[in-house]
């Protein structure tokens, strides 16, 4: 075991003592192994260069560059329509870029889409669960699609429903769930099998503060387990609290990149909100 791995074990233990209900099932241990494996092979989880995407007359991405180190939580921050979701959709192989290239965990997202799909997990705005099915049925169904055996899917579904505080609603149709419960189920589904990279596309948009805090807890638990998390958000506070590094996106390009603390210091601003406002104002001015 190298020292990075043992360091992660310590973090995991620390995390487990804080949130015993959320963590430390077999999954997390599996994931730990997997991530250490991934980190050895690919120190970089995401590498994108000059990504371009156009929808009709609107240019969603105009030369987006992004590098995400493995084992970190990375925040993509930007207003509505900045290109966050388009970036995630391209990186998760749902969309083909018109120009540029991107690799996820060492695999090209266009030429090796299937290799990428075997290593990632998607949740949030970009993915959803089936309203007509119960929470448990959703997890069983998606578990089978993720390659779990029948009994493996059952065990995993039960464990996740428990860990995400959904055991009581397991037999109810998802259409009866609250927004927070839905989102928790959706994120639980993305944790069915271990992934080297989790995409969480606006995981807390539309949630009340209590539900948002629960999702944050889950994201932290995932990060503490050693995986890479790419998170998109419109909420600066969220990026500030969760992300190791942040890229601010506006009009389809990265306008600033760094640690939340570094960005604040560089711009001489006290909060990420002020940094963000200053940056987007600059972008407006240069576009005009």
């Amino acid at each position, binding site marked *: *075991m190298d020292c990075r791995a043992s360091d992660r074990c310590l973090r995991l233990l620390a995390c487990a003592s804080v949130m015993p209900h959320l963590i430390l099932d077999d999954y997390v241990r599996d994931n730990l192994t997997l991530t250490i494996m991934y980190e050895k092979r690919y120190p970089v989880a995401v590498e994108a260069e000059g990504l371009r995407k156009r929808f009709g007359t609107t240019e969603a991405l105009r030369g987006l560059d992004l590098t995400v180190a493995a084992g970190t939580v990375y925040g993509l921050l930007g207003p509505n329509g900045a290109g966050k979701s388009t970036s995630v959709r391209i990186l998760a192989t749902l969309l083909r870029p018109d120009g540029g290239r991107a690799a996820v965990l060492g695999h090209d997202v266009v030429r090796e889409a299937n290799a990428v*799909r075997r290593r990632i997990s998607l949740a949030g705005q970009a993915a959803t669960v089936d309203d007509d099915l119960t929470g448990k049925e959703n997890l069983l169904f998606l578990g089978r699609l993720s390659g779990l055996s029948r009994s493996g899917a059952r065990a995993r579904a039960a464990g996740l429903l428990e860990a995400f505080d959904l055991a009581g609603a397991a037999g109810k149709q998802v259409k009866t769930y609250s927004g927070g419960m839905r989102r928790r189920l959706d994120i639980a589904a993305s944790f069915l*099998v271990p992934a080297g990279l989790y995409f969480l596309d606006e995981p807390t948009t539309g949630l009340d503060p209590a539900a948002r805090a629960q999702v944050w807890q889950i994201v932290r638990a995932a990060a503490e387990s050693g995986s890479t998390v790419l998170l998109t958000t419109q909420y600066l506070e969220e990026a500030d609290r969760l992300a190791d590094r942040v890229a601010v996106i506006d009009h389809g390009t990265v306008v600033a990149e760094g640690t939340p603390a570094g960005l604040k210091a560089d711009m001489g601003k006290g909060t990420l909100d002020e940094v963000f406002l200053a940056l987007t104002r600059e972008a407006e001015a240069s576009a005009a």
Partner: protein
Amino acid sequence: MTVIVTSTRPEPPGAWIATLAFGYRALLKIRHVPEQLFDVIAIPVVFTLMFTYLFGGALAGSPGRYLPFLLPGTLVMAVLLVSMYAGIGLNTDVSKGITARFRSLPIWPPAPIAGAILGDVARYLIAAGLVTILGVIMGYRPPGGAYGTLAAIGLLLAFALSLSWAWTALGLVLRTPQAVMSTGTVVLFPLTLASNVFVAPRTMPGWLQAFVRVNPVSHLVTAERGLMGGHPSAGQVTWVLLAAAALVAVFAPLTAWLYGRRP
């Protein structure tokens, strides 16, 4: 904690397992939202009762003599109306965004559609079974016997599955599930009413007779009457199978293309 478990992400499922998983989902939907199916089946059931007992005597001398003529027709009507759900279901998946999750999984790409077809088969069998049982309760004894009836249901299933590709293509073009439903109804009602389902076209005006004769539903109903009535016509069955093949040839590639194009 010093022991690190060495298990990793499982191998992605094979094509068949993935298809079965989507089929399982389709069956669960029938179980959880049965009203979706039964709302549509109610129409041919009511028509069967109404036409037999209200008009059967006037049309064929007695309800008992009219029913063998009508039942294969309402059977066709029931299954064709239910076939619309192929498009409604796909449209719901795409508009709600669950297809994005499916696409991010390392599965055989046509599995969602192949699995939905398995669900469709279950829906068609339920619809066909209900109408047939209704007929038997009303006193209908198909002269073609069990084999003739099963052959009739089999042919109807083949046609409905082929037609469902037209609905999936429509489901990928239109914006909402409601739009798919209303467009489907607008297409299917004239096709099933202006056919030989309820009456032989002899007494209709010439222009309508011309339409009824080229209407594919009429050919399907004639083939069904032959199979259930114990006088199957190879020509009619072939016509229906060719029409089914033509529907698949046009709409299956169109569906695949439209599905691949969706972000």
